[in-house]
C-alpha cells in the first residue's frame, strides 16, 4: 500500500534504526531519519512530519528535550511515540511530561508499534479536523464581528439624538448593549414645537432583535415629519412589523408626544413598563401598558388606548425599557419597579432623577451582571426651549395655498377607506395646528352624508327604532355591495389669510338624486332629540359656514384656522 504518511525516526543506534525502518516500510509509510534530538527538531521544521518515533538516550540532545521543543515549535499537532529501554514508572512519566503522546518499551514488538502508530495517526487526523473547523470558525467570527461593527454604526446613525440637552429638556441614555439588544429611542420635533418620542424594545437579543428598529425609525421620522397623528403612525408601524417580523418577535414600545401649545402630553404605552409623569411633588401619574406590543396583531383606532394629561412647566416624563427594572444583583434579585419609584420620590431635586436612577442601578448591580442594558429617557416640559436648528415644520410646501380634488367611483368607495388617506394628505401638505381631528370629523360627516343618503338613499330615521342602528348598518353594507352606479367628488381648497391662519373649503358632490333641503335646519342640533340627523349640524357647528347647493347633492363647508 502506497501511503504519503511521513514518519520521522529519531534513533542514534544504527541497528535499532534499521529495525524501525523495516517496520515502517512494511506498513507502506514514507520515512526520514535523525540521529539525535537536535536533528529531529530541524527535520520537523523542514518537513511535513506526521509522526515521530523518538529514542530517549541520544548524544547532542536527548529525546525529552527534543520532544519539548518539537511540541512548542511545530504548529500542527505531531504525535510523538517514545521508544525506551527504561521501563520504570518514573522514566515513562517523564516521557509523557515532556510532551510524548505514547511510549513503547524496547525490544520492539512489531505488531504493537504498528497499531500504536496507526492509532496516533487517527488522533492526528482528528486534531487536523478540529483545527480546520477552528480556522473556519475564526474566519466566520471575524466576519460577524465586522458585520456587528457595521451594524452598530448604522444603528447609532439612525438613533442619533440631536435633541439631547438641557436647553431642550430632552435627555436619553442608551448603553451600547441595549442598542444591540434591540432597544431604541427616536424623537422628532412635532408641529407644536414639542417632541414626539418613540421608546422601543424588541424581543430577543443581538442583531436579529435590533434589525427591526430600522424600518420603525424610517416610518416614525417620515410620518412625524409630515404631521401624521400618533395613532396613525402606530398603526403604520404595527402593520409593517406584522409583515416583517417572525411570530415570536415583537416590539414593546411607548409613544410620548408633548404638545407645547396646549401643555398636554399624550402617551400610548404598548407593552413597556410604566411611564411616569413627575411634578414638583413627585409622581403625578403613571401610565401602564394598555395596548398589545406592536407586531403581534392588527390594531385600529379603536384598540389603541391613548392617555392624555395636562402638564405644567417643570413637569417631566420618565420612561425606561425593562433593562432597568430587570437589573439583577448578586443574589439574583431584580431592581424592580418599587426601587425605581423610590428613587424618583426621594430625589432631592427633580433634575437629578435621571442621574439618581442610573447611579442606583449601577450600585445595585453586581460585577457578574453589570447594569449594561440600560435605556432611559426623560423629557422635561420647559417654558422656553432653544432648538439647535431653525424650525422647519413641513418639507415641500410650507406656507401654501393649494387645491386638491378626488373623484371616487363605486369601486373605490367600496374598497378604499378614503378618509384617513385624505386627512393625511392634507396634514402632509399643510399644518393645521390642532385642526387635524376637526378636519377629520368634518370630512367624515360630509362623506357619509353623501354616501349614505345621496347614493345609497338610506333613511336616517331607521336609526330611531329599537335595534335601528344595527339594521341601518346592515342595510348600508348590503346596499354598498349591490350599488352599481355612483360617484363622490371631494374638492379641497386652502387659502392663507392675510392676518395669519388659513381657510379650508371642503366641497362634496355626489351623483345622487339630492333632496329638498329648504326645510332642513342646520342649526337644529341642540334641539334634535333624535338619535339621527346630527351629522351636518355637527359640521355646521365646527365650521364658519355650510352651504347646501344644487339639488341637494352638493355641500360646501368652510373651516377657518389660526
Amino acid at each position, binding site marked *: 500500500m502506497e501511503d504519503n504518511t511521513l514518519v520521522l525516526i529519531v534513533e542514534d543506534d544504527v541497528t535499532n534504526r534499521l529495525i524501525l525502518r523495516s517496520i515502517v516500510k512494511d506498513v507502506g509509510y514514507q520515512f526520514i531519519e535523525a540521529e539525535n534530538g537536535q536533528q529531529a527538531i530541524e527535520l520537523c521544521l523542514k518537513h511535513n512530519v506526521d509522526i515521530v518515533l523518538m529514542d530517549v538516550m541520544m548524544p547532542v540532545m536527548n529525546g525529552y528535550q527534543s520532544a519539548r521543543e518539537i511540541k512548542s515549535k511545530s504548529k500542527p499537532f505531531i504525535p510523538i511515540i517514545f521508544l525506551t529501554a527504561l521501563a520504570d514508572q518514573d522514566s515513562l512519566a517523564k516521557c509523557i511530561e515532556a510532551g510524548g503522546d505514547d511510549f513503547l518499551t524496547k525490544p520492539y514488538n512489531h505488531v504493537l508499534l504498528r497499531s500504536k502508530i496507526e492509532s496516533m495517526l487517527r488522533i492526528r487526523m482528528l486534531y487536523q479536523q478540529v483545527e480546520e473547523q477552528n480556522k473556519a470558525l475564526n474566519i466566520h467570527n471575524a466576519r460577524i464581528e465586522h458585520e456587528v461593527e457595521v451594524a452598530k454604526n448604522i444603528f447609532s446613525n439612525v438613533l442619533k439624538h440631536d435633541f439631547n440637552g438641557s436647553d431642550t429638556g430632552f435627555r436619553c441614555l442608551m448603553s451600547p448593549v441595549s442598542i444591540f439588544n434591540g432597544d431604541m429611542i427616536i424623537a422628532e420635533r412635532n408641529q407644536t414645537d414639542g417632541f414626539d418620542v418613540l421608546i422601543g*424594545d424588541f*424581543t430577543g437579543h443581538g442583531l436579529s432583535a435590533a434589525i427591526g428598529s430600522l424600518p420603525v425609525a424610517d416610518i416614525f421620522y417620515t410620518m412625524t415629519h409630515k404631521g401624521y397623528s400618533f395613532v396613525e403612525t402606530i398603526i403604520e408601524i404595527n402593520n409593517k412589523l406584522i409583515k416583517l417580523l417572525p*411570530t*415570536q*418577535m415583537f416590539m*414593546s414600545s411607548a409613544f410620548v408626544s408633548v404638545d407645547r401649545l396646549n401643555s398636554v402630553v399624550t402617551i400610548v404605552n404598548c407593552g*413597556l413598563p410604566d411611564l411616569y409623569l413627575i411634578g414638583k411633588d413627585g409622581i403625578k401619574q403613571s401610565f401602564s401598558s*394598555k395596548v398589545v*406590543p406592536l407586531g403581534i396583531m392588527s390594531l385600529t383606532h379603536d384598540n389603541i388606548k391613548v392617555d392624555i394629561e395636562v402638564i405644567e412647566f417643570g413637569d417631566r416624563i420618565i420612561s425606561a425599557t425593562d433593562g432597568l427594572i430587570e437589573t439583577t444583583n448578586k443574589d439574583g434579585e431584580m431592581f424592580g419597579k418599587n426601587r425605581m419609584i423610590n428613587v424618583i420620590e426621594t430625589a432631592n431635586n427633580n433634575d437629578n432623577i435621571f442621574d439618581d436612577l442610573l447611579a442606583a442601578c449601577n450600585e445595585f448591580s453586581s460585577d457578574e451582571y453589570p447594569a449594561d442594558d440600560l435605556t432611559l429617557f426623560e423629557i422635561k416640559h420647559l417654558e422656553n426651549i432653544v432648538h439647535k436648528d431653525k424650525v422647519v415644520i413641513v418639507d415641500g410646501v410650507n406656507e401654501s395655498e393649494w387645491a386638491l380634488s378626488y373623484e371616487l367611483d363605486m369601486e373605490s368607495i367600496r374598497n378604499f377607506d378614503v378618509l384617513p388617506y385624505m386627512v393625511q394628505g392634507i396634514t402632509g401638505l399643510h399644518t393645521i395646528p390642532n385642526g387635524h381631528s376637526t378636519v377629520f370629523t368634518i370630512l367624515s360627516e360630509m362623506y357619509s352624508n353623501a354616501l349614505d343618503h345621496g347614493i345609497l338613499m338610506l333613511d336616517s330615521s331607521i336609526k330611531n327604532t329599537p335595534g335601528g342602528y344595527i339594521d341601518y348598518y346592515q342595510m348600508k353594507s348590503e346596499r354598498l355591495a349591490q350599488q352599481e352606479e355612483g360617484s363622490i367628488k371631494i374638492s379641497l381648497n386652502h387659502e392663507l389669510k392675510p392676518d395669519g391662519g388659513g381657510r379650508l373649503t371642503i366641497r362634496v358632490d355626489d351623483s345622487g338624486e339630492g333632496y329638498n333641503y329648504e326645510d332642513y335646519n342646520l342649526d337644529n342640533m341642540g334641539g334634535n332629540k333624535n338619535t339621527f340627523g346630527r351629522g351636518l349640524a355637527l359640521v355646521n357647528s365646527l365650521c364658519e359656514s355650510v352651504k347646501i347647493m344644487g339639488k341637494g347633492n352638493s355641500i360646501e363647508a368652510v373651516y377657518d384656522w389660526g
Partner: protein
Amino acid sequence: MSVNAVVSSDNNTVLLKVSGRFDFSIHNEFRNSYKDVGLKNVEYVIDMINTEYLDSSALGMMLLLKEYAEESGSNVVISNANQEILEILKIASFDKIFTIN
C-alpha cells in the same frame, strides 16, 4: 426537563408545565413539547406553577404556540402564574391576547 407535556386522558387538554426560568434557553424544548404531541382541537394549558421567571423571549415563544394552536383548531390558556409573572404578562398586554386563569 424544564418543560413537561402531559396529555389528559380524554385527549382534550395538553398541559405544558414549565419549571424554573422560562426564557430562550428552553426554546427548543418548549417547541418540541407541543409539536411532539401532535393533537388537533385541544386546549393547551401553559402551567406556570413552577415557573420562576419569564422574559420577553418566553412571550415570543407563547405567541408561536398560539399560532401553532390556532392552525390546528386549538387554543391556549395560561394558568397558575404567580404575581410577578402576571405583572409581566399584563405589562405586555398579553391578557388581551391569551386567556389567563
